[in-house]
């Protein structure tokens, strides 16, 4: 009688699958995706200098997307809703800054930058207005829907309506043409980084500002009573209420902070390129891709997701038509989700 040897070791394919489903696997996947992009640039014969320069641009774009994505993921976590108006909150922020710059006296450009001190006031104005408007929409639309226990899909559709409303108001007020914060000011790439890579000083300002905001978000979430209450409410809203947390107030602050960050992100995007009424709408898909890639509700995950997507988007433009950038973002997201459906930072099986 011959006994078939029983192989108790898991088959190699299953071991690979288990590895890919772990957090390390997520990192490996990302590295593989970037390796493919890198190989594609080499095949195309893209000079190293351009490659590094695109990576730097990608990090800057990722920083801008991150500010939007962090707000979006906080709203998803605390309210369990998808806010399709988030991209248009970004556009609104840019146009609010445009309005403020038009009203304020125009100062001399500060140092190497294209903008004067009034720009900083306009940024603050845009953040406050968008934060307040985000809260208003919650107070008069979403809160009423939640009180009636409306399905979350329906609330998400309502946010799509808000998105159209905001964009239409921008079209009515400013028209559909391009606008610039400072029309006619030359913005040469004078700042030299390393390896002879030159960027516009404005872009360094944007990157620096993104870093400052991200540190502030970290501080609020980890070190303040409000931030901990936001994380607690996202974790378990019922338990937050029975701990004495006024969750209505947490919801209010979540909208305000999320809106203000979206506003800032829109202003920064507008400073880098130009203003269009649909600028934020086109960023909505990369925003959601970052949020999902970094695990829904996790602000640090959203940051990493946004940087990955920003870099993949920019670097792939060396060998693809740049119009495909958002599609590249989605391909990266789908590859990761195939192996880790919970995103890079989620626990397995959750």
């Amino acid at each position, binding site marked *: 009688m011959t006994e078939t040897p029983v192989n108790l070791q898991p088959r190699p394919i299953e071991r690979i699958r288990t590895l890919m489903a772990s957090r390390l696997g997520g990192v490996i996947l990302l590295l593989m995706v970037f390796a493919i992009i890198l190989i594609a640039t080499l095949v195309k014969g893209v000079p190293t200098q351009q490659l590094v320069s695109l990576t730097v641009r990608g990090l800057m774009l990722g920083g801008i997307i991150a500010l939007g994505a962090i707000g979006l993921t906080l709203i998803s976590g605390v309210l369990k809703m998808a806010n399709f108006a988030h991209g248009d909150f970004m556009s609104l922020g840019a146009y609010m800054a445009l309005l403020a710059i038009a009203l304020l006296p125009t100062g001399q450009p500060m140092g190497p930058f294209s903008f004067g001190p009034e720009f900083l006031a306009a940024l603050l104005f845009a953040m406050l207005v968008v934060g307040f408007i985000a809260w208003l929409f919650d107070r008069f639309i979403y809160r009423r829907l939640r009180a009636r226990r409306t399905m979350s899909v329906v609330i998400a559709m309502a946010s799509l309506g808000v998105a159209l409303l905001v964009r239409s108001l921008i079209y009515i007020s400013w028209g559909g043409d391009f606008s610039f914060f400072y029309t006619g000011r030359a913005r040469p790439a004078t700042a030299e980084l390393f390896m002879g890579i030159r960027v516009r000083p404005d872009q360094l300002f944007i990157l620096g500002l993104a870093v400052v905001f991200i540190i502030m978000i970290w501080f609020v979430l980890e070190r303040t009573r409000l931030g901990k209450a936001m994380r607690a409410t996202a974790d378990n809203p019922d338990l937050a209420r029975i701990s*004495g947390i006024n969750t209505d107030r947490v919801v209010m602050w979540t909208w305000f902070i999320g809106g203000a960050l979206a506003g800032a992100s829109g202003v920064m995007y507008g400073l880098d390129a130009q203003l269009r009424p649909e600028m934020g709408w086109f960023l909505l898909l990369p925003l959601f891709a970052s949020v999902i890639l970094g695990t829904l509700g996790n602000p640090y995950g959203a940051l990493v997701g946004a940087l990955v997507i920003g870099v993949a988007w920019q670097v792939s433009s060396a060998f693809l038509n740049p119009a495909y950038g958002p599609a590249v973002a989605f391909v990266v997201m789908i590859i990761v989700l195939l192996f880790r459906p919970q995103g890079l930072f989620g626990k397995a099986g959750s």
Partner: protein
Amino acid sequence: MALLEVRGVTSGYGQMEVLHDISLEVGSGEIVSIIGPNGAGKSTAMKAVFGLLKPWQGEIVFDGKQIGGLSPDRIVQLGLCFVPQVENVFPNLTVDENLDMGGYLVRGSLAARKQRIFDMFPRLAERRRQRAGKMSGGERQMVAMGRALMLEPRLLMLDEPSAGLAPLMVDVIFETIRTINDAGVAVLMVEQNARKSLELADRGYVLATGRNQLDGNGDELLDNPEVARLYLGG
């Protein structure tokens, strides 16, 4: 006068009435246990007291104040804290942060209150930087009770504190309830483990199909042949 008085409360979910005319009392410093079969409305009764469900009829009075229909974040301010049966910790927050959230309403330093919790549960002190979601069932129950004790309540409500725990851990939890009570905190708990909880309790209530069946001293109920037959396994 009783610390907590529930008089003739009717409540339920949506259209479905689960509690029919429930009444119970907890005196200052007492341990009161509610026992009964699955689906008897034990947990629902706890939720109705704590404002997670609105009472349709009847009164809930805590320390002389009507609390029926108040929101949970108002009720905790009066000195009444609640540990639900499941999902009773913030999984992505550390042990420290869970306790911070328990003391959310406290203005000023939480250090002394936290130290008292850590004295009671030394195991939590060792793991204060760990996320609650990564802990064992028993440790999570300690975090949950610690969180509820941060406001130094006069009445602690526990929904099935021993559910799903290893036997050794069940003893630890019951021991802790005794310690908490010795410090002057009244306890109202719902338990599947009828014998253990009646041994610990001053008084008990038996609920069935959302109605009061029996009540009495813990020992009386333990000796009651009907309770023995139905809930104590002979």
